[in-house]
């Protein structure tokens, strides 16, 4: 069908063959890596949101010591390169875990690459999420809080029914940015040896020497992921802004 294209562009045929989904093409491997990347990114984003919520609330309503500790956490994570944080957290984290297990008399456990990647990236995402959520919560007009108190709502109820829905549209741009950072940071896990898209690409390129082809294909896959995510976040933001003044 595309023979005329293959005829005028030599080398395209081999490139397409290399990328085919069935072995001996490497396309299937790349897609598996992309799925692994998405899994890690989703997990890390979720963990980051949880840490960020507690962090933001701690920074806004916690005591002075809590606020200072959280400030140290966010400053360190935002100043030290992710690659170094990943290495430190990976080695230190598994070491501490295995020491704890040994202290309790259990055999050290093997943490799968996906879980470790999620934990490590989640901690990095948590620092950024803390700042985004804190800014968003602070932007909710204080009058709404006071009105909720006047109605006799407890803190949890206030958060669930007043603060959270109001802050979500304000936080969404920052959160969508965080999601993009999460998907791109999964590439760094290739340097630590976790199986995800960038590592699969490097293995495929190394085995077949078709570096250009595979890196372009991986770039295209990442681009598809980010463009689709951007659309989804835009749709969520539009839905949550229903009824609000146009931006």
């Amino acid at each position, binding site marked *: 069908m595309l023979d005329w294209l293959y005829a005028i562009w030599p080398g395209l045929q081999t490139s397409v063959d290399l990328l085919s989904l069935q072995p001996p093409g490497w396309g299937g491997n790349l897609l598996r890596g992309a799925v692994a990347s998405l899994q890690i990114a989703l997990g890390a984003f979720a963990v980051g949101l949880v840490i960020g919520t507690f962090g933001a609330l701690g920074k806004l309503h916690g005591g*002075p010591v809590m606020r200072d500790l959280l400030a140290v956490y966010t400053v*360190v994570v935002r100043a030290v390169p992710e690659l170094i944080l990943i290495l430190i957290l990976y080695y230190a984290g598994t070491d501490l875990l295995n020491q704890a297990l040994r202290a309790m008399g259990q055999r050290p456990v093997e943490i799968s690459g996906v879980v470790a990647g999620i934990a490590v990236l989640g901690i990095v995402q948590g620092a950024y999420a803390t700042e985004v959520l804190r800014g968003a919560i602070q932007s909710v007009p204080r009058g709404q809080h006071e009105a909720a108190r006047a109605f006799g709502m407890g803190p949890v109820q206030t958060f669930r029914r007043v603060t959270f829905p109001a802050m979500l549209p304000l936080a969404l741009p920052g959160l969508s940015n965080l999601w993009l950072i999460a998907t*791109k940071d999964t590439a*760094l896990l*290739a340097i630590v040896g976790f199986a995800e898209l960038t590592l699969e690409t490097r293995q495929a*390129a190394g085995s077949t020497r078709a570096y250009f082809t595979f890196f372009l294909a991986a*770039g295209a896959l990442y681009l598809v992921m980010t463009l689709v995510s951007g659309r989804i976040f835009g749709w969520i933001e539009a839905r949550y802004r229903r009824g609000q003044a146009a931006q």
Partner: protein
Amino acid sequence: MTRWLNRAAQEVLVPHRLIMIAVAIGIIVWAGMSMRWHWIPRYGDLAVQGIWRTLWLLALSCVIGFAMAVPLGLAQAAGPRVLAIPARAFCTVIRGTPLLLQLWLIYFGLGSLFPQFPWIRESELWPYLRQAWPYALLALSLSFAGYEGEVMRGAFKSVPGGQLEAARAMGMGRFAIFRRIWFPQALQSALPTLGGETVLQLKATPLVATITVIDIYAVASRVRQDTFIIYEPLLLLALIYMVIAGLIALGFKLLEQRYNRGMVG
């Protein structure tokens, strides 16, 4: 100076802060005495070279990237569609793919094309095409340009249109308007973001170690591999990056203060 010192003292000389500072100093002293640091003198020279390489890669890539970002932002904010659309496409692709992938594509991807063009080896550029730092500089600059192009687009759009119209009405030429009214105000509004982005660029520099550029991260990797010590080089490395990031943040704060002199709000 005394006012700054007074304010600093007010923040620090609070009971819980003093205790936390004491605990921090205690941890640092314990770390200094109980962990292994014997390798520092041996690798001191190499470390200084590595820090220098990190710093000049950072500075040069930010300058070149910013120089590319201004036309990219301008094209998207006010340009004809034939310029705006490629600029937007460039920024989208750069921001949508990981820097590591871009770096490897530029270094190994281009490298894999060299054997097909034997005349490259005779050309003048060959000594530069052989080394790794030009590719690292190119990738970092393109990445910075992609992100800052987006920032500058917003910055150029944020300057009130009325000022530009007034300048036009007074007969100022297009380039004069840009140089004296549009660009300075756009730069002023973008400066805080640019500071943050420069720190992000610093955090991206360790990746160049994967394409054989010896920056401070590569030196730490060599120490870890020669001595089999796992944590100490990484911790010292984190400290070095925190210091550099702090200096960048301080520099941009001073720049903002100076730039905002006489500005309202």
